[in-house]
Each structure stands twice: as structure tokens, then as C-alpha cells.
């Protein structure tokens, strides 16, 4: 579904991501792991349009998307969350989800201003749908509260559901479980399964190995911007290179 071929990102002389080949398989969760500073988030930013790769191509559904602006990539069907939560703080939870639905709504500037019947209908349906989305992650009781007033775990969930609301085909999750307690993580595990069941493909950066090994069907490991290993969880877990990178062996 999504294929990165030889993606390289350079910042001046620093090569943050070095010839990474990665393939996200349809309707699976692909994990992207690696030590801090390995270039995982940089790679994410490249797929989602924040950076343009210095070399290499990113192909999504048979279409080159490298170099597109973030909003174009979102409109194409790739949505994302951020490592540091990036919500619209003063807007309500419901409005946050409604903003997430932006790419699939049709209201234009003038039709919005003069509230044509079509816009009224769309707006009403969108609000109902946004409420459904909040229910999906159990945040419906916060619908009219500003996003900043939600508990931390709720903010993470809101960000995910805001991404999903665009009806994306691929959801990029950047450390979604960071800061969650073990109970929340178990719930999150179930939520990911539900998202998969909806037919959404996921690429996830995550440090929690238990979660990653349990839910990811395929894992890529980055170190110093280079692809260190890839494979199904068991392979990666037993790969001596990966163990060295994580535990720091001498060789």
C-alpha cells in the first residue's frame, strides 16, 4: 500500500535517514522501532510531507507522494498523530474531530457563509459522525470541553480519532502509548485492533516492546538512520543486531 524506496533525508551534512526501504502492508500494523535519535520521527515527517526526502521515493497507492505538502498527503489518505500532542487546545473535543473531517467535507467559503441547505445538512451529519467518533474512543462525555481540559490519555485518544475522522487509509502513530499506564495500554491494544477491523492500515512508532511485539505483524528497526533489521516480531526479537542496539553489546 505504501512503499518507501531508498529514502534519504539530509540536514546539511547530517544524514538523519539513510536509504531506508520500507513497505507497509495493507490492513496490518507495521511497527517502526529503534533507539532514541534513530530517525524514526524524521522518517515519519518525510512520509507525512513535513520534510521532502533528499533522495528516494514514497509511493502510496501507486502514486508518488514525496515532496507533497502535508495537507495534500492528508487529503490523499494518510493521517497522523504527533509525538508531542498537537491538538487544537482551545477548541472543544468535538470541534477537534470536526477539523479532522475537514478533507472529506465539501462546504466552500461562500456556501459556508450563506449556509446553503447542502451545507446545513452536511454540518449536521458531520456533527453526528464526529460524536460517533468520540464514542468510538469513549470520549463522548468530553464532547463540549476544550481539548486542553482532557486527561492526558484522553488527549492521545482524541488525537488518534481526529486522524481517523478524515477516513484515512493509513494512520501514522508516533509513540501513541507514551505516558499511558498499563491499564490504558491494554485498552489501547484493543483500540488498535478495532481500528484494524475498520480496514485502516497502521504504521506505528512505539517504544513499549510488549505492545509492539504483541500487536505488530511486521517490524522495522532503525538505528542511526539506517535500517538495521526487519521481519516478524519473533525474528526481530531474536536478531542479535537488534539486541546489541538496544542493550548495547560490544563487538
Amino acid at each position, binding site marked *: 500500500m505504501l512503499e518507501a524506496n531508498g529514502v534519504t533525508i539530509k540536514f546539511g551534512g547530517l544524514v538523519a535517514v539513510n536509504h531506508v526501504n520500507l513497505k507497509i502492508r495493507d490492513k496490518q500494523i507495521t511497527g517502526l522501532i529503534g533507539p532514541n535519535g534513530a530517525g524514526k520521527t524524521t522518517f515519519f515527517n518525510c512520509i507525512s510531507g513535513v520534510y521532502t526526502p533528499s533522495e528516494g521515493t514514497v509511493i502510496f497507492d501507486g502514486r508518488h507522494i514525496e515532496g507533497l505538502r502535508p*495537507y495534500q498527503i492528508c487529503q490523499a489518505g494518510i*493521517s*497522523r498523530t504527533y509525538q508531542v500532542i498537537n*491538538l*487544537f487546545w482551545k477548541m472543544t473535543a468535538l470541534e477537534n474531530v470536526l477539523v479532522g473531517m475537514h478533507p472529506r467535507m465539501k462546504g466552500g467559503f461562500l456556501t*459556508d457563509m450563506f449556509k446553503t441547505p447542502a451545507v446545513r445538512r452536511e*454540518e449536521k451529519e458531520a456533527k453526528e459522525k464526529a460524536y460517533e467518533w*468520540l464514542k468510538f474512543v469513549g470520549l463522548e462525555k468530553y464532547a*463540549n470541553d476544550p481539548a486542553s481540559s482532557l486527561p492526558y490519555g484522553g488527549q492521545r485518544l482524541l488525537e488518534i480519532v481526529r486522524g481517523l475522522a*478524515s477516513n484515512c487509509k493509513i494512520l501514522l502513530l508516533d509513540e501513541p502509548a507514551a505516558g499511558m499506564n498499563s491499564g490504558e495500554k491494554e485498552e489501547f491494544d484493543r483500540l488498535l485492533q478495532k481500528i484494524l477491523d475498520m480496514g485502516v492500515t497502521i504504521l506505528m512508532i512505539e517504544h513499549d516492546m510488549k505492545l509492539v511485539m504483541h500487536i505488530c505483524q511486521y517490524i522495522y528497526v532503525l538505528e542511526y538512520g539506517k535500517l538495521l533489521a526487519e521481519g516478524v516480531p519473533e525474528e526481530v526479537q531474536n536478531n542479535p543486531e537488534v539486541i546489541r542496539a538496544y542493550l548495547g553489546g560490544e563487538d
Partner: protein
Amino acid sequence: MDKTKKMNPLMLAVIAACIGLPFVFMGAPFILLILCYIEIYIIAVSGLDIVFGYCGQISLGHAAFYAIGAYGSVLLHKYYNVPVFFSMLIGAAIGAVIGAIVAYTCSNLVFHFLSLATQAVGEIVYILISHSPGNITGNFVGMYTDSVSIFGFKLDNQFKFYWFGLVCVLIFLALKQALINSRTGRAFMAIRENVKAADGMGIDVRMYKVKAFAMSAFYTAFAGALVTHMTKYASPDSFLYKQSVMFLTMLLFGGTGSLWGPIVGSISVLVINESLRDLQNLQMLVFGVLMLIVIIAIPGGIYGTAKEYYDNLKAKKSAGKTDAGTAVSEKKGV
């Protein structure tokens, strides 16, 4: 939608009061004039609110659009005999186009860079109207023009002008509210709250900034046309930098990002300003002090702070009955 429905009785009372107001002050033309000015400022400041309060983009050059609306209308009427009401609309549209061009070119600028750029636009327009090629604007002498006439009915005094202004205010505010509570309005707010995330959510940030600036400029330019045809005279003095500061003061004083903020701000600042008329030279000083008061003491502006206080009070009241509160918010959500 729910909110507007709830506010209706209050809204109707306010509108009724506005309609009755000129009869009360029939014998006081000065107060009628102030009321007309308040209407005009409400439109102009609401325009600024779209771009600053909702879209989060600062403009210190809105006097430019005020001037473009005013001179656009006056010149069209003078040289091309466009009837005054249509010349006002065209003048406002020209303002919107120029606003769009400014926003398109400045879309990557933020904070102080944007304020400098918009300030520069204000200065350019000021220079153009005060040193116009071929003296078409009458330069520093200014130029006289006609009052608004609608289907041959001349609004040649403040008493008549007031209602025309009131209708304009209601239309402009209604359109603003409609836009804000829509996909476009949410996109504006998303840009204000978090540009990076807005971009990531599929919002074409540049295009939406252009839209916000264009609409904002249309409002302010229309207000400029209104003021010129009310006083029947346009001169560069009314479009100095301090006019932009005045708009911003009113907006900050009343409260940004709301329907009532620009209204409260326009009324309070204008009333304060007029009561200090004897201190004309100290006007900027007064603005400065007002600005400081707002920034330090009431960062949300008068309306913003009052609303926050009221909301907190309500939250405290309903804290005892949380279940009822949740049920209400659930209803609201759907």
C-alpha cells in the same frame, strides 16, 4: 446552532433597543453621530476579528483596507458615476482582493514579521492616497462625496443613516457567525491554535489565510466606505497608522474571537475616546494605557473575561450535579 437559538431572546431585546435608540437621542445629533460611528467600527473591528481573533494572524495595517474601501467608493462614484451603494460594495471587493494578495504573499510570515509587513501595507496605501498620481484623490486636501442613496432615497442625515448602518451591522455579523460555525471557520481556528496540526489535518493553510484576510478586508473596507459616505468627506488623516491601532485596541479591549467582543470593544473604546476629546493630542497615550490595562489585567478583553467568569460560576453551580451536566453536554453534542 444551539447556542444561537438560546441567545435569541437576548438578541431580540438588543436589536429592539438598537432600533429604538435614535428616537431617544433625536435631539442630540452628536450622540447620533457617535452611534453611527459605533456601527461602523463594529463592522470594521469584526472584520479584524476574523483574521486576528479567529485565524490568529495579526494585522497592523487594517487602516489600509479602511482607506481602500473609502477611496475606492469615492473615486468610483466621482469618475465613473457608480451609484453610491454599489460603489461601496465594489470598493469593499477591491479591498478584499488586495487583502487576498497581501495574505498570499505574506502567508509564511508569523507574529512580528507579519505585523511589520501589514504595517508596511498600511503605509503604502497612506502614501498612495496622500500623494496620488495626478492628484486623483485630492491628496491632503481630501475630497467631498455624496451620501448613501438607496433606490433614490438619500440617507443624508445621521438619523436616517443609523438604520442603514444597523442593517449592515446585522447582516455582517450574521454572515460572520455563519462562517465561523462552519468548516471554513473551524479551519481558521485550527490555524490559530496549531498551524502544524492544521496542515497535517488536510487544511491548506495558505488558502485559508487568504480567505480570512480577504473576508476581513472586505468588512473593514466596507466600513471605510460607510464612514466616508456618512461624513461625505474623505481625507488621508482618517487612515493613519493610529487607525489600525485603534481597531486593534477595540478588538483586544472587547475580546477576540467572539461575536460580542468587537461590539463591546467598539462601544467602550469609542465612548472613552470621545469623552477624552479635549485631550486629542494624548489619544495615542490613552490607547497605550488601555492596551496595557487589557494585556495585564484582563487578557481576555471585557467580554472574554466576563464570559470566563460567568462560565466558571456556572460550572461551580453544576459541579454538584455532574450527571445532569453530562446529559446536557451529550444532548448538545448531537
